[in-house]
């Protein structure tokens, strides 16, 4: 038997991933050895420092264009840009997750195993400190996302998908208030997520079968092999199409595109709001990072075949998101449907084959992530004695009660609606422009029309906040502590800056928009 030779691992290029996973392991140890009263501070500091260290490594690696760990991980422009985006957004999400001033003990339950609605549960909801295991879980999720956007073969991508999904399922179940809703959300997310993973795996198997039999090349699921197989494989293309469709189902589920979106409103509503923000921002970046890589690198040769199908999915997603957002009465569900519609716009970007399309999509992901995190930050602040007041009727008259936060929220909603001078406008422009150049006019028309429909629910909230009289039941806006304020301010400022002066980030995205193959 011949010797096994370990593939060379470029540790510097892998450093961001290794730092996050290592920090998660240290976090698990902290749970075991650090006294309870100081765990929260230690864990939060550790997680934030790890994110900072990983971000530093991403910046230091900025010029890397390489494939390492065999064929498993590719570190190139889009990888580094998206990893940076995930880390920045994750840092904001961690600030929201770590805040304990808005609600005594934080947004997370103290003991998840206590039966919901029981006497013990009421007692622990009063003010016992929340779980600190959430930090290692979040760190694992961030690590998984970093791998997901860097994965260069489908098997690594699948495991990365699980590494970031599993902690998210758990985090969804840990809300302090409305625990039954939260547990139901986690259950739904878990079951449907497992189902989507099965589709993904089935697709990987079919693609593996498709790559066999190319002259001079073994079968494999790494992207260069698949790319070669698309043009050269003697095997029936039915395998390619079926595999591509099943892979797309798995990825579009994570991206919350219709018709695989049904989990989104329930999960966004049930999960603790900081986790909802984390999912809306970071999961979206990760899912679209993977979609971009799979369809631009692996299946580039089959663009003629997948573009009409994905285009139809994009239009359907935009329609479903925009139309159903109009009928929502809960602010978290409204933002969930808005996130579905945004997945549709992002798909338009994925379908633009040019370099501009790629950079536009990456820009959109960052801009949307900042805005949506800021939006959920505001949602955590509007509360009454029972926790967050998410029903829209309760938001009526909020502008009179606390004009500052209502003003910030109005600004964010205007950004979602795509009003000029906000990042929403520039990012939609960055996506629709290349799509128009790439001959996808029908997608752009659908995008513009649904944007107009989608503006209605946003503006309805704005009108409700400012033009109604505050009633008896109008909740107060809690004055946030430092962490939530910081996250909110970063989000709002980024939304403004990316709207007024998008050029630096757009240039960065354009410079990074080149996959290593």
């Amino acid at each position, binding site marked *: 038997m011949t010797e096994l*030779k370990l593939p060379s691992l470029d540790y510097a290029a892998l450093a961001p991933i290794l730092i996050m996973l290592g920090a998660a392991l240290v976090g698990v140890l902290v749970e075991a050895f650090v006294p309870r009263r100081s765990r929260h501070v230690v864990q939060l500091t550790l997680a934030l420092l790890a994110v900072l260290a990983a971000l530093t490594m991403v910046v230091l690696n900025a010029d890397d264009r390489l494939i390492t760990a065999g064929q498993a991980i590719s570190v190139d422009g889009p990888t580094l840009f998206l990893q940076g985006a995930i880390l920045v957004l994750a840092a904001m999400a961690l600030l929201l997750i770590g805040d304990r001033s808005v609600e005594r003990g934080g947004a997370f339950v103290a003991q998840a195993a206590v039966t919901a609605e029981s006497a013990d549960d009421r007692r622990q909801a009063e003010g016992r400190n929340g779980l600190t295991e959430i930090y290692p879980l979040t760190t694992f999720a961030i690590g998984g996302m970093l791998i997901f956007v860097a994965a260069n073969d489908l098997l690594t991508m699948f495991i990365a998908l699980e590494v970031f999904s599993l902690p998210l399922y758990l985090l969804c179940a840990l809300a302090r208030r409305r625990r039954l809703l939260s547990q139901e959300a986690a259950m739904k997310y878990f079951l449907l997520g497992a189902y989507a993973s099965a589709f993904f795996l089935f697709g990987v198997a079919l693609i593996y079968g498709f790559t066999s039999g190319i002259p001079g090349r073994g079968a494999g699921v790494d992207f260069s092999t698949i790319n070669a197989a698309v043009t050269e494989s003697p095997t029936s293309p*039915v395998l390619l199409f079926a595999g591509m469709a099943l892979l797309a189902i798995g990825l579009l589920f994570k991206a919350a595109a219709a018709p695989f979106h049904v989990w989104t409103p329930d999960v966004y509503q049930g999960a603790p709001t900081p986790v909802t923000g984390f999912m809306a921002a970071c999961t979206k970046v990760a899912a679209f990072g993977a979609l971009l890589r799979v369809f631009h690198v692996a299946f580039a040769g089959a663009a003629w075949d997948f573009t009409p199908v994905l285009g139809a999915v994009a239009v359907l997603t935009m329609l479903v998101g925009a139309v159903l957002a109009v009928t929502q009465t809960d602010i978290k569900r409204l933002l969930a449907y808005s996130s579905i519609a945004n997945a549709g716009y992002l798909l338009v970007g994925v379908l633009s084959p040019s370099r501009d399309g790629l950079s536009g999509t990456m820009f959109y992901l960052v801009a949307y992530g900042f805005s949506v995190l800021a939006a959920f930050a505001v949602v955590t602040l509007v509360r009454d004695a029972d926790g967050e007041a998410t029903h829209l009727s309760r938001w009526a008259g909020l502008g009179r009660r606390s004009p500052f936060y209502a003003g910030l929220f109005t600004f964010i909603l205007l950004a979602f609606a795509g009003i000029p001078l906000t990042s929403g406008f520039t990012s939609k422009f960055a996506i629709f422009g290349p799509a128009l150049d790439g001959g996808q006019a029908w997608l752009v028309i659908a995008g513009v029309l649904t944007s107009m429909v989608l503006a209605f629910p946003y503006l309805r909230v704005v009108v409700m906040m400012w033009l109604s009289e505050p009633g008896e039941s109008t909740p107060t806006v809690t004055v946030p502590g430092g962490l939530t304020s910081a996250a909110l301010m970063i989000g709002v400022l980024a939304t403004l800056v990316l709207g007024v002066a998008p050029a630096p980030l757009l240039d960065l995205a354009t410079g990074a928009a080149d996959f290593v193959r």
Partner: protein
Amino acid sequence: MTTSTVLAAAGDVSGGEEITFWILAPLALIGAIGMVAARNAVHSALWLVLTMLCLGVFYVLQAGPFIGMVQIIVYTGAIMMLFLFVLMLVGRDASDSLIETLRGQRVAAIVLGLGFAGLVGGALYRAMDGTTAVGLEQANAEGNVQGIARLLFTKYVFAFELTSALLITAAVGAMVLAHIERRKQDKVDQPSTMRARFAPGNYPGPKPGPGVFATSSSVATPARLPDGRLTERSTPDILPVRELTAQETSLKGTDQ
């Protein structure tokens, strides 16, 4: 080469392989359908065991003895049995409710499921018809287990290492969702229980039972104290105190 490798390496499907397939494939299918259709969770698990065993044999038959054995030992032997333990602990009497929360959901699911199976099955059959299997001999050249080891420790070493993150997450998740921590002050010993019992302000005797009157035998009806007041201590905490209305206390006409 092991015997099973010889079996499959011959290129054509041998008679024995074909017979085994046609016996086990329907069994695997029956197991899968039974798993979904069974109402009792334990029956479901046992049906699944049948399917998994059949799949294990398939793997062995197709020259993957290692994965076949892992399927049988780890999946069927360990994981499914653990699953059965959990089911037995939770209560094997629990069976699924047959009420559909969405009307017509079951029919729609069956129709769509059959359609999807037909679509994928048909497409794959057409695509694979006439394809000759390649690569098995190279894959098993050094032996099956060695081949897997080579892949795990060279090409997929990163993915292999990553699964450790999954396992740790699963362990942490199980602890978070299932473990209730007893704090020191929650643990009470006998002397402190007694002290609390006879502390001023506490009534040391047994609590009065719920009020059972001629007109009501509900546990939600509070008992009356000697002075005629109702006492909440006689009803369980989770029940709302319910006072009898005039209509309920009036004679029902059964005493004649």
